[in-house]
């Protein structure tokens, strides 16, 4: 414990260097801007910031992206509460009570509750990241290739099962990502795979182009097809934040406790990111909250629960990312990409080999929480200014960022063609409602998973049962099967429920669906 605190102290000292401090501030501001703009998702914003980190050292790069991630979970609250426009999907539950409270003449109070929830969620997430990462890493030191393969399968299955409603679509997306990762010269045997004689495919497909193309350009094309319908906002509204009293905060201690737990848990479980955390916390409040009957009418519980939980997921996500090298969400996949671009492989050894960097990142999380709250309190008015820009203009620059970002990685025009191709793929995924996250994660984790699988097969003489007979990998593989089976069971139950509703007489139906 003392050692951890000492290292954290060193982390704060490293954070004080001009480069790291500047990266933190820039990350906070850009994260807020991204979250405020309805056309830009948080993951897209982190992806677009990636090229700026090429010339930086690894620590400020990760500090910048993590600060963006953290403040991005908070910035969208302003547009949700004031304009009823969720900047991010995770802000949707927030507007159910935030907007009514603002309409009741209490926008400052609604923003105050949001700020408080972000502050508590942020501090809890930073503490949980520091407390859980080292035990996680120590445990992971016992892992061999089969355990790694099992963990990777669990991570991928979590993302697949929680990415969207259709398991089939998520599996298709994941397989496409795994196949994209297998293009190029195979590392083990040196064989050309799916290169079709095209020289540029021998180097493989950069996951960066897949990420930037599918998330960034794909989203831009989707919005273009919709005609850029989001109108510029009247951002001249008075913006004030008023903190709730100590007595009011104490009345919400149950909500705070429940949402904190849900947030951290959703962060650690792969696939269950900030959006799921936000919805689940609101749902739990609707079922178990003291004022559950009043939810949706503009009560503080409906603001605190989703905001606190979504911010609290960030630290949870950082734990498996740093300790195991497994990203649990789109944003952490990009952060993993940044690590790899700088030649750093996160995993259990990272605490020994790059302890200073890890604790600087942890320290930056504490500083980012305070920074984002200060920004939200004092500087939100200039940040909201971006809402005045027409969507066609911002989207044009987002597309440009995608191109320049992909080109910057290798100065290769080939990557520009890849961006166009994956932009169209991303649009088609959006159009046919296939989730993009499994494809991106498959692309990043595919080579690692294949390597762990092949190493296991070589070491254990092609014995498939090894993944199930070793204690740790066996448990994780069973968890993987449960994670994959969960949506099937849910869909089956949903189908039975729908059949019952369809078969019920009209009188019964009215009774059943009564709000």
């Amino acid at each position: 414990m003392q050692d951890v605190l000492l290292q954290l102290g060193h982390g704060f000292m490293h954070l004080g260097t001009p480069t790291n401090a500047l990266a933190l501030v820039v990350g906070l501001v850009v994260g807020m801007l991204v979250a405020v703009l309805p056309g830009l998702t948080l993951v897209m914003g982190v992806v677009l910031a990636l090229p700026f980190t090429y010339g930086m050292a690894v620590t400020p790069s990760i500090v910048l992206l993590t600060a963006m991630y953290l403040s991005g979970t908070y910035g969208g609250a302003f547009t949700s509460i004031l304009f009823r426009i969720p900047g991010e999907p995770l802000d949707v539950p927030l507007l159910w009570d935030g907007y009514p409270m603002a309409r009741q003449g209490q926008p400052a109070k609604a923003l105050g509750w949001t700020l408080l929830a972000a502050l508590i969620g942020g501090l809890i997430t930073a503490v949980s990241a520091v407390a859980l990462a080292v035990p996680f890493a120590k445990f992971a030191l016992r892992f061999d290739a089969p355990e790694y393969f099992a963990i990777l399968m669990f991570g991928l299955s979590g993302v697949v099962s929680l990415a969207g409603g259709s398991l089939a679509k998520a599996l298709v997306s994941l397989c496409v990502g795994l196949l994209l990762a297998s293009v190029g010269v195979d590392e083990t045997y040196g064989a050309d795979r799916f290169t079709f004689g095209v020289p540029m495919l021998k180097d493989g497909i950069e996951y960066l182009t897949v990420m930037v193309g599918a998330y960034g350009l794909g989203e831009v094309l989707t919005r273009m097809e919709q005609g850029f319908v989001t109108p510029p906002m009247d951002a001249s509204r008075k913006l004030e934040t008023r903190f709730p009293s100590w007595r009011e905060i104490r009345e919400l201690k149950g909500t705070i406790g429940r949402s904190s737990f849900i947030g951290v848990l959703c962060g650690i479980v792969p696939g269950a990111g900030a959006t799921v955390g936000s919805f689940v916390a609101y749902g739990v409040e609707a079922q178990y909250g003291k004022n559950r009957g009043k939810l949706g009418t503009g009560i503080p519980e409906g603001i605190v629960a989703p905001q606190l939980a979504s911010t609290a997921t960030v630290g949870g996500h950082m734990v498996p990312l740093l300790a195991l090298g497994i990203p649990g969400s789109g944003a952490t996949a990009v952060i993993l990409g940044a690590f790899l671009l700088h030649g750093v492989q996160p995993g259990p050894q990272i605490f020994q080999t790059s302890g200073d960097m890890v604790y600087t990142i942890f320290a930056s999380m504490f500083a980012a929480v305070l920074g984002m709250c200060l920004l939200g309190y004092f500087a939100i008015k200039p940040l909201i200014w971006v809402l005045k820009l027409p969507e066609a203009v911002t989207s044009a620059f987002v597309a440009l960022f995608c191109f320049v970002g992909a080109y910057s990685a290798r100065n290769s025009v080939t990557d520009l063609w890849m961006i166009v191709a994956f932009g169209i793929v991303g649009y088609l995924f959006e159009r046919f409602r296939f989730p993009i996250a499994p494809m991106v994660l498959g692309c990043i984790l595919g080579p690692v998973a294949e390597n762990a699988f092949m190493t296991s097969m070589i070491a254990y003489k092609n014995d498939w049962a090894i993944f199930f007979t070793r204690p740790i990998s066996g448990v994780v593989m069973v968890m993987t099967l449960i994670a994959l089976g969960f949506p099937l069971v849910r869909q089956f139950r949903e189908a039975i429920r729908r059949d019952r509703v369809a078969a019920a007489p009209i009188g019964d139906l009215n009774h059943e669906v009564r709000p």
Partner: protein
Amino acid sequence: MPPRGARLRAALPYAAVLLGAVFLYFRAAEFAMMGREGNLGPAFWPRAVLLLLMIVCLLEMLRVAFFFRREPDEPIVPAAGPVPEEDDAPRLPALLAGGIVITVLYVPAMEMMGFFLATILYLAAFMWIGRYRRPIVVAVTSVLGTIAFVYVFMKVVYVSLPLGAGPFRQFSAWVLAALGVH
């Protein structure tokens, strides 16, 4: 049972993916023989993924054919609180087609004309096609935005953006000199 057209539309993406997967599975034979004795070889992993892909597509096509119902596309989260308004914006395929065409043309244009000129044209065309029709704002935003990009990426981040060919290359060099980028 929903009409045949709806079922066909639902099955189409899976049929396309299935065809692609079958094609790749057989193409994998080209490198399947490169494995050493007793090892699984380089084709094992992609073929396993392709098999999974084919099974998923086949099952989905069967589901659509015999047990079709609307897929639950909403995220797996508790249905709590009021349901947000549906995004009922109409789709405008002409806009999308225009966007894709200028985006595809942007890449060869950048190689030929260089980043500076091609980007000014791309930004202006994008905003115009995106139905933002204020010519002076479009022109000024495109030029100033491009200058900002050139300055930040070439002067600050040291990215060597394309200069173009022939006379365009000379023009790009002149612009860079004017911006103090060497």
